[in-house]
């Protein structure tokens, strides 16, 4: 498919944000392929649009550093792209020219009107349906041929499509964080999404070398469909434990179990902190209307939000305080929800270990297992031993694994995911799990 006609003028809404900036960088790579690699005669414009001018200035610094890294990695190909330019001899000269050429295609703007000229509108603003609908309908009225590719992570795309009057010119394009590195892309075709747009979105994703998983247009899709329910389960388990152990120990134990005994890259509450207590709450709220029979909210989460314990990251990528406090990425303190203050991890660690009791003698770590050729064997042995132990920790872990599996299976049964494999791919690539939730271990 010839991507050029649609790629000539592209806008990214929310370009200075965590997801938007990554999407902008990916799009700049794609434009570079067309303009420099394929030597297209067309002019290309990539609009980086955000409400904050200072954030856009910072964004350009980020884009430049990403372009440099990309050029360094792909220097063999870049030398071919610039083979005709006799002035570019050293790799360094080629790399700098590439960065300059790509940066020249990027324009920053704080005005929504900038999108009126664009063929494609990528959107990565906050998960707020009303705001999305408002912006899209405004753009559509002024730019009737525009295609919308939205990084919406939980709101049904069909609802946005209808409310904004988009005539099927929208597709869900859900990247994972950080978009430049994360291979996974959930593509959500809504009921009205046009075939041409759908085909284009797949062709572009392939060109970006993404692992594409199609998801049905059901709130939360596959990724958040699993993650949110997993998080609610963890909150409920913690709440039960808190009755006897207090909140700090409850948070710490469930987090430890979900990381060490489920062999995941981080515990569930650390993941909530990473995503943000606030963002988690917004996602749940956006999903709730689609699932009236389920309770997709949690009092603890809401009250933490009210108390301004929100997690998320600072601009430099370091972690804000949430369920935990961190130092250099390591948990140092745990939030005691009942008392409304943080307690030192060291003060509760021993008690928690004693409470969890016996654990498998076979020690396996996500970090080493995830890339091991014999991963399946290790996991098999580990979980077998886990099942055989009758301790608080082991029982909680087994129940946790079974619940995660049930969520995965529900997503398949309700056709949100086309197959168990798709669910597993999302969790393994989007969440870096060492194994998918639908497995024989639980």
């Amino acid at each position, binding site marked *: 498919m010839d991507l050029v006609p649609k790629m000539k003028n592209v806008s990214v809404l929310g370009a200075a944000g965590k997801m938007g900036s990554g999407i902008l960088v990916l799009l700049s790579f794609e434009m570079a392929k067309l303009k420099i690699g394929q030597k297209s005669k067309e002019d290309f414009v990539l609009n980086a649009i955000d409400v904050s001018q200072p954030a856009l200035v910072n964004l350009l610094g980020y884009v430049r550093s990403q372009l440099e890294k990309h050029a360094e*990695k792909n220097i063999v190909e870049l030398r071919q792209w610039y083979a005709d330019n006799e002035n570019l001899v*050293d790799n*360094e000269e080629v790399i700098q020219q590439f960065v300059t050429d790509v940066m020249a295609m990027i324009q920053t703007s704080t005005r929504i009107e900038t999108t009126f000229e664009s063929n494609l509108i990528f959107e990565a603003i906050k998960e707020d349906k009303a705001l999305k609908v408002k912006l899209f309908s405004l753009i559509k009225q002024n730019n009737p041929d525009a295609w919308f590719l939205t990084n919406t992570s939980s709101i049904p795309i069909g609802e946005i499509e209808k409310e904004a009057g988009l005539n099927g010119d929208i597709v869900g394009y859900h990247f994972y964080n950080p978009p430049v590195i994360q291979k996974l892309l959930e593509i959500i075709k809504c009921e009205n999404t046009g075939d041409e747009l759908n085909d284009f979105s797949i062709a572009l994703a392939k060109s970006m070398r993404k692992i594409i998983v199609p998801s049905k247009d059901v709130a939360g899709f596959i990724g958040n469909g699993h993650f949110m329910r997993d998080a609610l389960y963890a909150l409920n388990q913690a709440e039960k434990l808190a009755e006897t152990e207090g909140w700090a120990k409850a948070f710490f134990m469930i987090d430890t179990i979900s990381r060490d005994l489920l062999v995941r890259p981080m515990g569930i509450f650390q993941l909530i902190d990473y995503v943000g207590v606030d963002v988690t709450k917004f996602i749940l709220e956006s999903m709730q209307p689609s699932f009236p029979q389920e309770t997709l909210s949690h009092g603890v989460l809401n009250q933490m939000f009210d108390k301004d314990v929100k997690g998320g990251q600072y601009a430099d990528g370091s972690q804000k305080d949430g369920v935990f406090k961190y130092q250099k990425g390591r948990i140092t303190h745990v939030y005691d929800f009942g008392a409304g203050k943080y307690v030192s991890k060291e003060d509760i660690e021993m008690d928690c270990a004693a409470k969890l009791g016996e654990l498998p003698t076979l020690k396996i770590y996500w970090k080493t297992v995830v890339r091991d050729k014999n991963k399946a064997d290790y996991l098999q042995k580990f979980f077998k031993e886990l099942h055989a132990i009758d301790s608080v920790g082991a029982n909680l872990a087994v129940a946790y694994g079974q619940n995660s599996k049930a969520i995965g299976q529900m997503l398949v049964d309700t056709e949100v995911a086309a197959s168990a494999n798709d669910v597993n791919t999302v969790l393994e690539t989007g969440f870096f799990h060492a194994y998918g939730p639908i497995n024989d271990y639980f």
Partner: protein
Amino acid sequence: MKALRKKVYMVAGYNTISMGTGRKEFHPKKPRPDLEHYIKEAGQETLKMIGGAQNVDEGVIGNFMASRFNKQANLPAFLPMIDEGLKHKPAISVEGACASGGLALASGIKSVLAETADVVLVVGFEVQNTMKAMYGADVLAGAGWMKTRKDGHAYFFPGVFSNRAGAYYEKFGREKTREAMAKWYCNAIENARLCETAQEFHNKNKDLESMANMPVNPKKFVDHLNYSDCSKVSDGASAIAIVSEEGLKKVGIDPKDAVEVLGIGQAAADITQEPENMTSLTTMKAAAAKALEMAGVAVDQIGTVEVHDCFSIAGIMGAEAIGFAEEGKGVDFVLEGHTSREGKVPFNTTGGLIGWGHPTGATGVHQAVTVWEQLTGNAGEAQIEMKEDRPYGMSVNMGGDDKSLVVIVYKRGE
């Protein structure tokens, strides 16, 4: 010249760690020792073994591209930094790409022969982890003719030797050549594991063969070589003292703890010309022949060789150029185990450029230090047994694509 007009010895060799990827203490984003550190460490350790700076008559510094890796020139003036006692002594620096170290040795040998010095301190160094590999490739490309850089590969020298490997595959068979290259890599790592200054000393990979037999990736690297076929990007320095008979007495070292230089063969080829034969290192061949002739030694009397394996294929072609095998038979020579540490001529006994490391300007000196260690029984864990009928050692140092060559033949002092 048939033979050296007077006896020339080398003593008191010292190698710093070869720092770079592979070493546990290496982290690309953390601060590392600078060139001053390496020059000082190597120079001072050699001085300690020869009774201090007052015994030194002059110094030679070998380096390739400090001017670009470290933005530093005027290297002779680093000699007195090693020790105050070297202040106002003559110093010179020499450059000949990756043969800079060998040329530094040649310069020292000539000073002794010219009788302007009885004791010459030779230090070779390079600190090249100051830049990422793709920028380092720009700098190292200076060892080739700059006018060919534009059409060359992003990784210029891997590209040059990849082309040689490709030509060799075509002429003598790809499969066997790849096997020999894999064997070369395994030998290099196994030897490096015995030498604690080696860059691959910490290599614990149990399956080296799989590593060496990974498919090549022309999209990200070159057509015919793997990373395992390439020498390392290294920081390091090596030092050795070159002395006359009088010098040996002056520094108080028993000749048995020295090696005598029996022959030296230097050769240069026109850098603006393409190789006359893609599957043969003809300049190396000429230099090796000269060195052997001057030494009056036959190739089958050589008991150990330090050969310039900037790439595994260069090591194999080196074995041919020296005369151990005919053109195209170097692969068999390697596959039959003759170059392994138990073989008849152990090559690169501490790993060579692939296993020990390749701090470019230091490499020629490092080779001499390794030969000196082996012939005098100072090689520690890496010590090989020198056989009576093969008492001689040889070092082969190459700059660029077979352009600047220094070959030296040694025997243990008597």
